């Protein structure tokens, strides 16, 4: 019998594909159903935030940061105001710090919830997505109430936050927490123990600690390897050092760990929120900050723990009211780099499971 002629097939996944979470495109070379090579192509959502920032005053940049990782805009807000405050040595009122922590952790929970839902949707389960949206909606409503927008909050200011909490807001959070716990249990029952789900995620897409560090991964993709690294603890900023919370870590660095860490982190975030609303001090929410912000000439780098990992802002200032150069270290962008090596020699059925577990948002990847 003659040798069977086989060919590699190039499959273009995206930019319009239901599971690439936006406009990511991955060109995969297939040998049968085995991926031989995967090349991510990005830039379809590139809006040039860094270039735009060079023409904007610092308070004008904040709405642009909302649109990076648009599902955790509060944390993005925190990244930019934190960077400017660190550079200018601005002290902000305690109450503002607490409010930042509360809205940030609520938003982190919302972002993680969306990951859980979208990941399960990638894996073909429809219901968790809608349950997630039910829960997330409550958070979004809380954030809407305090900031006036559902997604792009533009809530934090250099020197504090824009609004104090409206009356009854903390009470609403207190009401939300038991509801969240109930829903958390529901996700745990519905998803975590599901044998079909486990068979798709356990032991798949795993990498080691050293590889993760060498790739510069941060956030859950790094913690899933068992490396305890969370900027909230390791380079404590804001008032995170006053709260008692854990950094959950995984063991194998596989899809399952990444999924489960999202659940565990939500629990910890709610713990922080609970403590913060119990101990929030009274006082103003806006400190003393100059009307026109001018960072002294020099170079500054400051990072916060975003929903996807280390969200850093590097500012080069020449002393004017606009940055000379701004570079945003986007965690999704860095985390996505590990995809080609993870996908190599995997079955195409695992493609979506691996890609989804890295938890990227294309607004952030492309900036």
């Amino acid at each position, binding site marked *: 019998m003659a040798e069977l002629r086989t060919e590699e097939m190039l499959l273009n996944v995206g930019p319009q594909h239901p599971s690439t979470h936006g406009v990511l495109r991955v060109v995969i070379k297939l040998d049968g159903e085995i991926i031989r090579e995967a090349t991510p192509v*990005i*830039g379809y959502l*590139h809006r*040039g935030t*860094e*270039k735009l920032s060079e023409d904007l005053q610092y308070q004008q940049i904040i709405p642009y940061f909302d649109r990076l990782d648009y599902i955790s805009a509060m944390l993005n807000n925190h990244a930019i105001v934190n960077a400017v405050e660190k*550079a200018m040595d601005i002290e902000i009122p305690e109450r503002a710090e607490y409010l930042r922590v509360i809205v940030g952790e609520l938003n982190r929970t919302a972002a993680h919830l969306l990951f859980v839902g979208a990941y399960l949707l990638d894996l073909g389960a429809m219901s968790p997505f809608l349950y997630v949206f039910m829960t997330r909606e409550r958070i979004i409503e809380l954030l809407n109430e305090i900031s006036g927008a559902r997604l792009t909050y533009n809530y934090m200011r250099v020197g504090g936050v824009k609004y104090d909490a409206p009356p009854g807001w903390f009470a609403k959070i207190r009401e939300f927490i038991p509801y969240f716990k109930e829903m958390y249990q529901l996700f745990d029952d519905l998803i975590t123990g599901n044998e079909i789900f486990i068979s798709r995620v356990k032991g798949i897409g795993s990498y080691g600690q050293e*590889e993760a*560090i*060498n*790739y*510069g*991964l941060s956030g859950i993709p790094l913690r899933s390897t068992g490396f305890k*690294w969370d900027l909230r603890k*390791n380079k404590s900023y804001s008032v995170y050092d006053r709260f008692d919370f854990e950094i959950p870590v995984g063991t194998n660095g596989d899809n399952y760990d990444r999924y489960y860490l999202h659940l565990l982190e939500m629990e910890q975030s709610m713990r922080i929120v609970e403590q913060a609303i119990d101990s929030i001090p009274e006082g103003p929410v806006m400190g003393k900050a100059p009307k026109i912000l001018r960072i*002294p*000439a*020099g*170079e*500054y*780098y400051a*990072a916060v723990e975003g929903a996807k990992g*280390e969200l*850093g802002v*590097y500012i*080069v200032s020449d*002393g004017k009211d606009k940055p*000379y*150069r701004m*570079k945003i*270290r986007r965690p999704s*962008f*860095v985390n*996505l*780099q590990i995809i080609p090596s993870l996908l190599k020699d995997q079955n195409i059925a695992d493609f979506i499971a691996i890609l989804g577990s890295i938890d990227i948002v294309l607004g952030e990847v*492309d900036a």
Partner: protein
Amino acid sequence: MTEESKETTVKPSAETAVNTETQPKEEQPDPKKEAAQKVLDRIRGLIVQELGDHVLEDALLMKHQPTFVVKRDHWLQTVQLLRHHDALGFDYPEAMAGTDYPANGYIEVILYVYSMNHNELIAVKTRTPRDNAELQSLSYVYQGLNWEEREIYDLVGVKFTGHPDLRRIMMPEDYEGHPLRKDFSVWKE
């Protein structure tokens, strides 16, 4: 490198250094700053000891941030030392950025590396002339810098020699110009 460009690469470092170190001079010694100075001195000592005096152009504090300005030709060598030396062990690439300084005629590439063992963050930077901007690629030292370098190549226009896959990353393949350069304009004359 021409004689002229060499001169321009050396000069302005002092200028930026002066800018950042002016503020807290009169005050009492800042403990944060002193600690940073200690780190700076220790690492500078190690670099000089291993690679010699000539690799460093400057070592300064950028507001508590130890920053080393490395000569362009020793860029890869220095970063490799930072990565692999036991007493340094800067194993985590945090951020990398390129900045265009048309007034000074160079492009500066800065790399923030973190040492997970020693809990130290340092910045290393180097300069390359604007026209024919070229640097050794670090993507073999830190795999995570692969895309960062591609981004700098795409947006700032620094060619990284030895990079495995140096293509545009944000802009289309056939795009002309480098948007983050200061003289870039979308309006074609």
